[in-house]
């Protein structure tokens, strides 16, 4: 299999094209702009559409329009841009449309900074727009995973007719690693039963819509969606468990932070501390089963995040607060070091 050295942002774009993404609508924002630039170069040659929109709001609504016709569509941005896209994402979810949305996170709130961050965890998993809904949220920790997860995100978005997000960060977006691209079956999902692409006089007209003025009908449509969410929770969680079998202290981290945490775990082991790591690859659905498996012998958990502590809420819920969960984080674009994390492990009693 061919191996290419690629930047994370460019790998996301190439994977999307290979996954059958037929259109990309975006708006420049650091640190994900290479993705749009790559699409601008490649998309037309690949027989698709690249369009730079006038705003994040327009870009996500172009995705809505294209996805309505059954085409695989994608947009990408970084944190402040996601706030703008949230309106459209809610409509996409409410209209049961598949779409892939990339967030290469930077520090916030407000204009924040342009260095890596994970402070959009709450936004991605709980509040990406108004109303009762979820996106599937994938959290890659390497450039290869960015490729694999984009492919999976398109597939799962089509399968469940819902938006899926890749929650990356500026570190992953900017770094280079060797990647390979698998063979992809892009026509796996039949959309002819709902796509609004012109009825050609052969069927009833299709309506893509999120408006239900009768409360009972709206409730019923939301409940249908939540039934689907239960299936997803049961079947689609994914996590990496690293040295968890005998660990006393279980570190929990996702994305780029997990790479640093893994080093800290190895350093701790070298010093005789039984540390392990749980890394969710899906943030929604959160891998509840997997974290309970990973934490079964641990005395304590330590969530390490590039934020003030957001995933820690889901960890506590997932283990039903059955064990103490500590937190260590850096925010604003500061990346924690293995030494800092090791010190924290020792501080909270990992050396006992």
């Amino acid at each position, binding site marked *: 299999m061919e191996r290419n050295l690629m930047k994370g942002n460019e790998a996301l774009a190439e994977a999307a094209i290979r996954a059958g993404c*037929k*259109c990309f*609508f975006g708006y420049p924002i650091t640190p994900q702009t290479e993705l749009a630039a790559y699409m601008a170069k490649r998309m037309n040659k690949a027989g698709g*559409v690249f*369009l730079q*929109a*006038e*705003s994040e*709001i*327009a*870009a996500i*609504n*172009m*995705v*809505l*329009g*294209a*996805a*309505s*016709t059954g*085409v695989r*569509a994608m947009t990408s941005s970084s944190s402040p841009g996601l706030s703008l896209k949230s*309106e*459209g994402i809610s*409509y996409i979810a409410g*209209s049961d449309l598949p779409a892939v949305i990339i967030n290469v996170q930077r520090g916030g709130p407000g204009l924040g900074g342009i260095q890596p961050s994970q402070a959009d965890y709450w936004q991605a998993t709980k509040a990406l727009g108004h109303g009762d809904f979820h996106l599937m949220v994938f959290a890659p920790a390497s450039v290869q995973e960015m490729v694999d997860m984009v492919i999976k995100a398109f597939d799962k978005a089509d399968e469940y007719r819902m938006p899926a997000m890749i929650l990356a960060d500026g570190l992953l977006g900017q770094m280079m690693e060797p990647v390979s691209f698998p063979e992809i079956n892009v026509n796996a999902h039949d959309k002819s039963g709902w796509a*609004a*692409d*012109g*009825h*050609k*006089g*052969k069927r009833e*007209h*299709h*309506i*893509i*819509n*999120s*408006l239900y003025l009768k409360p009972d009908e709206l409730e019923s449509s939301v409940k249908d969606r939540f039934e689907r969410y239960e299936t997803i929770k049961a079947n689609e969680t994914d996590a990496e468990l690293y040295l968890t079998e005998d660990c006393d202290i279980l570190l929990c981290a996702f994305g780029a932070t997990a790479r640093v945490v893994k080093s800290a775990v190895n350093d701790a082991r070298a010093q005789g501390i039984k540390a392990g790591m749980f890394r969710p690859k899906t943030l929604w659905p959160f891998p509840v089963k997997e974290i309970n498996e990973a934490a079964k012998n641990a005395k304590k958990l330590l969530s390490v995040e590039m934020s003030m502590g957001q995933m820690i809420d889901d960890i506590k819920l997932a283990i039903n607060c059955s064990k103490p969960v500590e937190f260590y984080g850096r925010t604003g674009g500061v990346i924690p070091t293995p030494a800092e994390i090791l010190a924290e492990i020792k501080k909270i009693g990992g050396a006992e």
Partner: protein
Amino acid sequence: MAVVFERPKALLDVPTHYCPGCTHGIVHRLVAEVIDEMGIEGETVGVCPVGCSVMAYDYFGCDMIEAPHGRAPAVATGVKRTNPDKFVFTYQGDGDLAAIGTAETVHAATRGENIVIIFINNTIYGMTGGQMAPTTLPGQVTQTTPFGRDPQLAGFPVRVCEMLSTLTGTAYAHRVAVDSVPHVRDAKKAIRKAFETQKAKKGFSIIEVLSTCPTNWGLTPTEAIKRLQDEMIPYYPLGVYKDTTEEEGNK
């Protein structure tokens, strides 16, 4: 006896939710007549706005998409760019198109998107109960301009066709009205021309239709027609504001 006038097939045989005398129904019918006459219902995708015509998806026989408030031109762009062989139109009110959706409207026009926008200007927000629109006339009383629109306070009305006609990407901008039979006939010709412009891949068309809102204007349907004629047409003159469809070199 032969039928000389009946409902076009592209307008589904269902009652509308519009108030008595609201001219949305006339404009819906004209769009549907054009779709029928061109035989393109099966190749057409319509995009509805948020506002009184939000439920237009229940009335048109073609495939329909309901867009977030103001975003219909962006949604239509997504449809048309990925389905260039389809006819794509948006149907939008003044709040949707000229307030919250101004950016989407202007940029769809300036890109020369090959779509048709049907723009209903009735100088008021109807669905929410009669607030000031970007097109509300100076002095006009609405819920949010209870003493009449004061330009010192609330600014001036937006003249959409004039504004969009300054953009190179706009191929055809035409303001019509549906206050009388001759004007209804003109409106239909304009809508037909807009769809033909799209068919010929000549770019962006906007048909602005001066319309009434008897309920929120507090007038009878007949009085509302008179207000359109006496107050709206002088401020928003009818006519073709831009037409490059006969020129060479259009996209």
